Every structure is written in structure tokens, then in C-alpha cells.
């Protein structure tokens, strides 16, 4: 496992840890106001404060959980869906394949952001898990498509025919012969979905569609934007949250590279 992958996993572990212990170690309640209005980073407030004196460091810390939970839930849900649809379509072929492929392509092509915005704003109370579910519905299609292509090529391999000739039942062939050969693809898809979900959730929060009662990095940016942080030169309000997003995204992408290079030896770094 090379350096890039280890770096990615390290950052990921760090954020996971924060997600778990964040609310406990935060120095202040993120919603608590104080008299320290809009002050730059200092000893008392590492990331500075907002226009109502809230501690930004605590907000980012507590917000980690909201982000990681959504990422994880969506990752799992969407990956499960993509496996069911993609592998079935690739293995069964024929009419079932055409129908399932058409379904995933429709979900793939329709632009997710405007659609989710509409759905989220129509829901009376958009809490985290519900949003995660809605995001999963838009995120599964890409993985399904990739899995279908892989399954199609696997299906023609002799060991699948040999399993049939041995008398294996179809479901056992799918689960025990085909799926184990797809682990790299599935893992890669999972990571990609988590990235997608995290970005989408943060975007929704930033735009103000999702309920603002739970803290996540996007809500921090939302408040920064609506209070004209930029115009007032309060860079500390929006820089940390954004950096965290970028870091998490980079970590996930690095892990994905690691998986890619594991699966395709040609991509490994050439020792020049």
C-alpha cells in the first residue's frame, strides 16, 4: 500500500474519530452566542467567531458528525442498490437488462441537484436521515452502470459456465462466484458515492434547503454567506469548513486511487 493510499486512509480515520468524539471535545456549544462578535482566530476561539459570537471551531467540530453520518448512510444504501440493480442486469441479460439499464440511465442523466432541491424543499421537515435517503436515490445509478458492465464481462468467463455445469443454482452463482470478483469495483463505487453524498449534502445545507437545526460544514458556510462574511472580510468564517470539505474529499479520492491501482497494476507509479 503506497504513501498516497495510507495518507488518504489516515485523514479518513482522523475525521471518523472527530465524528465520534466531536461533540464531547468541542470547547463551546456551537449554537451558544457570546459577546465576542466576529473576531478573528485567537487563543480563546481557534477559528474565530461569527456575527453572533458563536465559536466556529466548535461548529466545525460538531459538524463533522453530520457530514460523516450522511456520507456513510448514503454510501451503504446507494451501494446496496447499485449492486442489486447492476449485477442483476448484467447477469440476467435480455429484457430484464434493458429495463434495468434504462432505469439507471434515467436516474443518471437527470440532474440531481435541482431535483433534490425541489424534493427537499417540499418536505415539511428535512432531517438528516431523510435527506440521506433522498440522496441515495440519486447516487446509486453510476455504480449500477459500472457493476453491470463488469458483470457482463464476468458472466462469459468459463468459471461461471463451469459453476452452472456443476449444478449451482443461479443465485448462488451470482452471490458466491460473481460478486467476490467484483469487490474492487464495489469498494471503489462505495468511496465515490460517499464523496458524492457528502458534497451534495453540504451543497444543500449551503443553499439553505436542509433543516438548519443540525450542524454540518455546509450550514456553517450558509450562515457565513447570509451574514456577508465575505464583504466584511471575515475569512475565518468560511475557510475552515471549506478546507475540511476539501480534505475529506481528497482523502476519499486517494483511497479510491489506491483501490484502482490495486485492481489495475498498470496504474501503479513507475519507479523512474
Amino acid at each position, binding site marked *: 500500500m503506497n504513501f498516497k493510499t495510507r495518507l488518504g486512509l489516515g485523514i479518513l480515520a482522523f475525521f471518523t474519530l472527530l465524528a465520534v468524539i466531536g461533540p464531547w471535545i468541542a470547547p463551546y456549544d456551537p449554537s451558544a452566542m457570546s459577546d465576542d462578535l466576529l473576531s478573528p482566530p485567537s487563543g480563546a476561539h481557534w477559528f474565530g467567531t461569527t456575527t453572533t459570537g458563536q465559536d466556529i471551531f466548535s461548529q466545525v467540530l460538531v459538524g463533522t458528525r453530520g457530514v460523516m453520518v450522511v456520507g456513510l448512510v448514503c454510501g451503504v444504501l446507494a451501494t446496496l442498490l447499485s449492486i442489486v440493480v447492476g449485477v442483476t442486469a448484467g447477469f440476467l441479460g435480455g429484457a430484464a437488462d434493458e429495463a434495468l439499464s434504462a432505469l439507471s440511465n434515467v436516474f443518471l442523466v437527470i440532474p440531481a441537484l435541482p431535483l433534490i432541491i425541489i424534493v427537499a424543499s417540499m418536505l415539511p421537515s428535512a432531517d438528516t436521515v431523510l435527506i440521506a435517503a433522498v440522496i441515495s436515490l440519486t447516487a446509486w445509478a453510476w455504480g449500477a452502470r459500472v457493476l453491470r458492465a463488469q458483470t457482463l464481462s464476468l458472466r462469459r*468467463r*468459463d*468459471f461461471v*459456465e*463451469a*459453476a*452452472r*455445469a*456443476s*449444478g*449451482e443454482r443461479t443465485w448462488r452463482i451470482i452471490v458466491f*462466484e460473481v460478486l*467476490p*470478483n467484483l469487490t474492487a469495483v464495489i469498494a471503489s463505487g462505495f468511496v465515490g458515492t460517499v464523496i458524492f453524498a457528502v458534497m451534495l449534502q453540504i451543497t444543500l445545507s449551503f443553499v439553505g434547503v436542509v433543516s438548519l437545526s443540525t450542524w454540518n460544514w455546509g450550514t456553517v458556510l450558509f450562515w457565513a454567506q447570509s451574514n456577508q462574511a465575505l464583504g466584511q472580510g471575515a475569512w475565518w468564517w468560511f475557510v475552515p469548513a471549506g478546507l475540511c470539505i476539501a480534505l475529506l474529499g481528497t482523502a476519499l479520492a486517494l483511497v479510491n486511487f489506491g483501490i484502482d491501482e490495486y485492481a489495475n497494476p498498470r496504474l501503479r507509479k513507475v519507479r523512474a
Partner: protein
Amino acid sequence: MTVSGEDRSVALEARGLVKTYRRVRAVQDVSLVLHRGCVTALVGESGSGKSTVAKLLARLVEPTAGEILLDGEKVRRVREYRRKVQMVFQDPFASLNPVHTVRYHLTRPLKIHRRPETVEELLARVNLPADFASRYPHELSGGQRQRVAIARALAACPEVLLADEPVSMLDVSIRLGVLNLLLDLKERLRLAVLYITHDIASARYFADETFVMYGGQLVEGGDSESVTQRPAHPYTQLLIESAPDPERSVAALDAPVEEAAAVSAGCQFAARCPKVQARCWVEAPPRSDVGAGHWAACWLHVRAAGAAA
């Protein structure tokens, strides 16, 4: 077939098998009989349809027409059929699942068909040591993998073994070992073996009966000795001649077979036959006897009433 007191009854019979893919007739009116304790060779080049015949007999593919009889009856339930008819594939590198151990590969058919044998016993039957059970396919050589594939086929305790070019992808030095193993198993277990190959020379060594296939049809058949030593059909003759033999001059075998898209009414081999006559293009030749149990489908051997052959 000489009767020697051992069981040589019919295990598998295929009648009039036809398989058409879109507009291509891969298999056209093929009838075969496999006897217990005998090896039947099916010889042909790439595209002749021989692998399709194997898949049809293994029921991995459904025939467009024709029927398959196992022990004299049509078997409806595929499970039952699979217990009695097993297949060994050509490519030892592709026929084993890279993520599973040898033990897994052999345990599955034992479980599916509820056989009492152990994995170690199966390995012993194919002359592999018992500790191979914990190995993965990529840790085995081609010959070893093929033995595992044979062991897997044997796990179901079949009556018929379909071997689709079992040694074509193995090093020449290994081939004999695997073929001898198959011969040995055939004798001990009284298996009916279908040996598919493009190498007619090995058919003489290995098989009791040999059939020659071209363009989806059987063009010659009989016991291996006659077919390989006294080939009657021009195609078989070309095959024999093309086997490297420094004492013979080589006859040129031209362009490879194009898939017989449109089925012509005449002989399929007419375009490449060095002894082609006018009627070959127009009418498909019937089978004629050329010796004891040896037949060929060629106009050269048809003695029409009153006409010179």
C-alpha cells in the same frame, strides 16, 4: 465395437441436434452415441461447431432442434442431468474462479450432488497431493489446474464426461500425462468420454471412435484406426496430411472457415475441396459406408446405380 464382457452400453445419445444463432447454423443435424468405457473423439477446426456440440450436450445451451437421451430417456430436470453429465473446459486458467481455493471448487459439487467422498479422495484420484486443497488457482500450473477441473467434474460421480479440448492449452510435455489420466479414469469408472480436439493425431491415440466435423456437420465417422489411417472424406485427408510428418509433402489448407452463414444446399466443404465435382455444389452428399462401421459423407464414395463412382 468389440464386446469384451464389460459394460459398453449407451450412456448418452444425441439425435439430430441443431443449433442456430441468428442466421448462423453452428450445429446442423449432429447425431452422436457415447458408450460407457469408450472415448469418442470429435475432431474439427475452429468454427466447426464442436465446442457448441459440447455445450449442447452439457445443456449449457438449449438446442434449436433435436433431442438428447440419457440412458435412453429424455431427462427433464437439469439437476439430475448435471449429476450424470459433467464437463471439463478448454482453458485451465479461466475455468477456475480465482477467488476460491481448490477445496471450495471441489466441495461445491460434492455438496450439490450429495456425494460422500472427501476433497482429499478426489485429489488423490487425479494424482494430486492432498495439501493442494488449500491452494488458489494462481498457485497452480496449467496441468495441475486441469487436473483440479477433472476432479471437480468427477465429484458428481458422472457417467459421461465431456472434455472440450482438455489439453490444447497445456504444454506439449504435460499433455500426455493428462490424457493418460483421463484414459485411466475412463477404465476404472466406466465413463463415457467425449473428447473434442482439433488434433486428429491425438484422436488415434486416445479415442476408440472418431467423428470429423466441418461447418457444423459430421462428415466422417468410424473407429479411430480406420478414420485416421484410411480417411475417406477429403477434409479428413487434409487434416491427416497437415499433421507435421517430415516424410510427407504438405498439402495446402487455404483460407480459414468462414461461418456458414447461408446454408447452401450442397456440400459445405465444396469451396475448399481439392476433389470437388459439379454435383457437390448442388446437392449435399449422403453417408456411405467405406468399411466396417466406417462411413463418410462424400459423393466420391456414393455408388449410384449404373453410374461410375
